[in-house]
């Protein structure tokens, strides 16, 4: 009874997420998440299954080959989505100090609390695994074999096989994250609180990037698996594909072949040969899945129970936490990039928010992942088989601008997010209206930790593609582009980075697609202009000078407005504060 009650309580904790606004109805959010999952998987399943429905003269060999790619897609998708779910619920995966302070004094055995938490985590994972795999399980196998001469029972057998393997793949993804988190917790001890956020952000970047690059990996999965020494078979989704094909592959491949026209017959024979050549590899991969799945479960369970042997309490201060003053990098920044107190406040507050505040960090991690996937896909395409480093080519020239636009769009969004609505009161009280210098600090921090790292990361690939002189010029353009965009963000008079309670964002439901298309169009024009300008030194200088001029104009406008503006508190008593229930009486 108590365990059930606690399990329900812990399940609710999964909805107390930094990604969910405290204002929103948690049940609505849950319904929305599940409906998005079901609708998107339904759409994808139907889209992937259409090729079987409309395939003239469908045959077992070609079906088996095509279905392998689909299954690879579903299994990878299930694994990555489940891993992302685990990363998104990072803080709720284990007992925390708040649980200790509430449940610790109650007459509930420690084992009951731990078991309830484990059950809640398992139920949460199972619920999401079901939602992710339901549509592909129910729809894909029947639609795939609908036109094949397969018996009803054999056809139906494909459904539970798909279900078991896809759920196992999803749970493997989820459990891997739990194992990573708990191992980190076990080895990092009191430093876990600080490391945890960074690891979470890195995992988000890695998983979203993997998700976006997934189509490239799943293509021709059977041939990749059959290629001796192929490194892709080290990827866990291939192990589960091996398990799936070992269990279900023969059900389709083993169907009798019918008489087909010669051209189709040849394709069928080729597909059958390719598929059967991959069968030994599938068996080897299945063995890996068979070992890896329970091994990961045991690892996660062991380290989880080890960490749960006593209730966690907040770390106590030690000599390592003693007053240390500003470090050398901070003093360096204070002496160069942020020389006034307000600029320093803006600079360091931006760095702290982006790195340590969960909502800000998650947005930036998501944008970094999208930018990274885009860069990898474009450069991989540009450096195709026929790439010759001695003959630079310009394909992928707009990648840098696109990457910067994605990262800066994310940064533009996080500027609107309050660092902490209640703590902002103290910020407001200390605010002396020095917005210009504060924003300077914010922009310089963004240049240093958002724009420059992106440019430096892209430089080697661009130097290889376009040649070093062009890549250096391109990088300078990127820097100027970043400066101009950041200055444009500062033009919003109502925006005080990280300190507003609420700044209305453009209505993305209606304006989003228009803004997106317009941005792509603008980036394309900008890249074309840049590419022609970088053809010679004089046009390049004129181009950069023009960008500097745009920046100067925006900056002048901001200064002029700052001089004319009455110095107000950022947002004292706006109606939005009432909306956020901040105006309660004492």
């Amino acid at each position, binding site marked *: 009874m108590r365990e059930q009650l606690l399990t329900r309580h812990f399940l609710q904790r999964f909805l107390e997420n930094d990604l969910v606004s405290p204002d929103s109805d948690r049940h609505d959010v849950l319904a929305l998440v599940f409906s998005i999952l079901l609708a998107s998987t339904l759409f994808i399943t139907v889209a992937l299954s259409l090729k079987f429905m409309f395939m003239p003269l469908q045959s077992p060999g070609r079906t088996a080959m095509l279905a392998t790619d689909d299954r690879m897609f579903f299994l990878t998708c299930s694994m990555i989505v489940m891993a992302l779910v685990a990363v998104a619920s990072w803080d709720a995966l284990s007992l925390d100090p708040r649980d200790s302070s509430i449940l610790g004094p109650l007459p509930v055995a420690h084992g009951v609390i731990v078991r309830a938490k484990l059950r809640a985590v398992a139920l949460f994972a199972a619920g999401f695994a079901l939602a992710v795999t339901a549509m592909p399980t129910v729809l894909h196998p029947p639609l795939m074999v609908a036109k094949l001469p397969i018996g009803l029972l054999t056809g139906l057998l494909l459904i539970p096989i798909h279900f078991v393997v896809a759920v196992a793949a999803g749970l493997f993804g989820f459990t891997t994250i739990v194992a990573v988190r708990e191992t980190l917790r076990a080895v990092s001890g009191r430093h876990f*609180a*600080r490391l945890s956020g960074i690891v979470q952000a890195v995992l988000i970047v890695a998983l979203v990037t993997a998700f976006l690059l997934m189509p490239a990996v799943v293509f021709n999965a059977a041939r990749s698996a059959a290629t001796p020494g192929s490194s892709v078979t080290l990827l866990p989704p291939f192990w589960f594909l091996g398990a799936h094909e070992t269990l279900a592959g023969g059900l389709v491949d083993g169907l009798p072949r019918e008489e087909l026209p010669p051209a189709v017959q040849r394709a069928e024979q080729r597909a059958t040969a390719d598929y059967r050549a991959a069968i030994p590899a599938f068996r080897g991969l299945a063995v890996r899945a068979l070992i890896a799945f329970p091994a990961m479960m045991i690892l996660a369970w062991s380290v989880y129970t080890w960490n749960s042997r006593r209730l966690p309490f*907040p*770390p*106590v*201060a*030690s*000599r*390592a*936490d*003693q*007053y*240390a*003053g*500003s470090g050398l990098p901070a003093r360096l920044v*204070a002496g160069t990039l942020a020389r*006034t*107190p*307000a600029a*320093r*406040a803006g600079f*360091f*507050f931006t760095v*702290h*928010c982006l790195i*340590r*505040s*969960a909502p800000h960090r998650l947005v930036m991690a998501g944008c970094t992942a999208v930018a990274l996937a885009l860069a990898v896909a474009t450069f991989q395409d540009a450096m195709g088989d026929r790439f010759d480093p001695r003959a630079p080519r310009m394909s992928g020239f707009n990648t840098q601008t696109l990457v910067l636009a994605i990262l800066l769009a994310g940064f533009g969004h996080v500027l609107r997010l309050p*660092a*902490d609505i*209640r*703590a902002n*009161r*103290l*910020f*407001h*009280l*200390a*605010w*002396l*209206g*020095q917005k210009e210098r*504060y924003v300077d600090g914010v922009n310089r921090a963004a240049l240093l930790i958002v724009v420059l790292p992106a440019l430096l990361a892209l430089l080697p690939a661009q130097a290889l593609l376009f040649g070093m002189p062009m890549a250096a010029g391109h990088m300078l353009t990127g820097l100027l582009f970043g400066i101009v965009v950041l200055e444009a963000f500062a033009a919003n008079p109502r925006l005080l980075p990280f300190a507003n309670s609420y700044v209305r964002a453009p209505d993305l439901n209606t304006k989003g697609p228009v803004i997106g298309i317009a941005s792509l169009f603008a980036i394309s024009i900008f890249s074309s202009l840049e590419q022609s300008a970088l053809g010679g030194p004089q046009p390049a200088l004129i181009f950069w000078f023009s960008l500097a001029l745009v920046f100067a104009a925006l900056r002048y406008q901001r200064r002029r407005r700052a001089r004319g503006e009455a*110095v*107000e*508190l950022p947002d*004292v*008593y706006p109606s939005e504060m009432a909306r956020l229930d901040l*105006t*309660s*009486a*004492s």
Partner: protein
Amino acid sequence: MTAPLLEARHLVKRFHGIKVVDDVSFVVRPGEVVGYLGPNGSGKTTTGRMLTGLMEPSSGAVLFGGRSIGDDPVAYRRRLGYVPEEPALYSFLSGREQLQLIGRLREIPEDVLEHRMRALLQLFGLADAAEQSISAYSKGMKQKVLIIGALLHDPDVLIFDEPDSGLDVTAALVLRHLVDLLASRGKAVLYSSHVLEVVEKLCTRVIVLHRGRIVAEDTVDQLRTLMSHESLEQVFAQLVLETNPAQTARDIADVVAGHA
């Protein structure tokens, strides 16, 4: 008598048409510690927020040095220190980083800020936890950060909203002496607290608020004499208590024991 430094003039605050602060007027002079008392929900915190400029009154005005604080809010904020009731701090910053942010926003020169932070963190016993994330701080530690933050820029007006909440005995005693000392150095202090014993010893004058209205304002001695009571606690009880605390306590004990 010195001119008032801070003045609340006919302050009214309504939430959804309900008056939570109703025609509140008082002054705080340099060198004075004014106690601001009242039961939960009486409007103390709302008054505090209006006095700091964080909340706009529905009507009435807050004057600083005879001028409305809206005339030059920055000048007012430069000379105001505020310890809010709830310890809302940026949980992802360390104590040092929180104070550094506040100090820099207040444009305190870096060397002065560094010196004051180091000294105050040491004196408040927080030096050992200065680099630790605030999320791991106890309520008392957070309260100390708030108090240091309010004092960093050496303000002329201090508004303390239940500053002793969560503080240990030593820190509470230090705070009491500190408030006394600050007043003796010419600061104007508004001190809101539920610890009547402290208010009795510390405050030159006391304002008692009940249901948003001032029900008494005088020196502690004068209030005691007027109401024929020996302690401020008895005066307070007579002014604002609507139930008999002893009877309520008995009722609670009976409910707990299952007799009721």
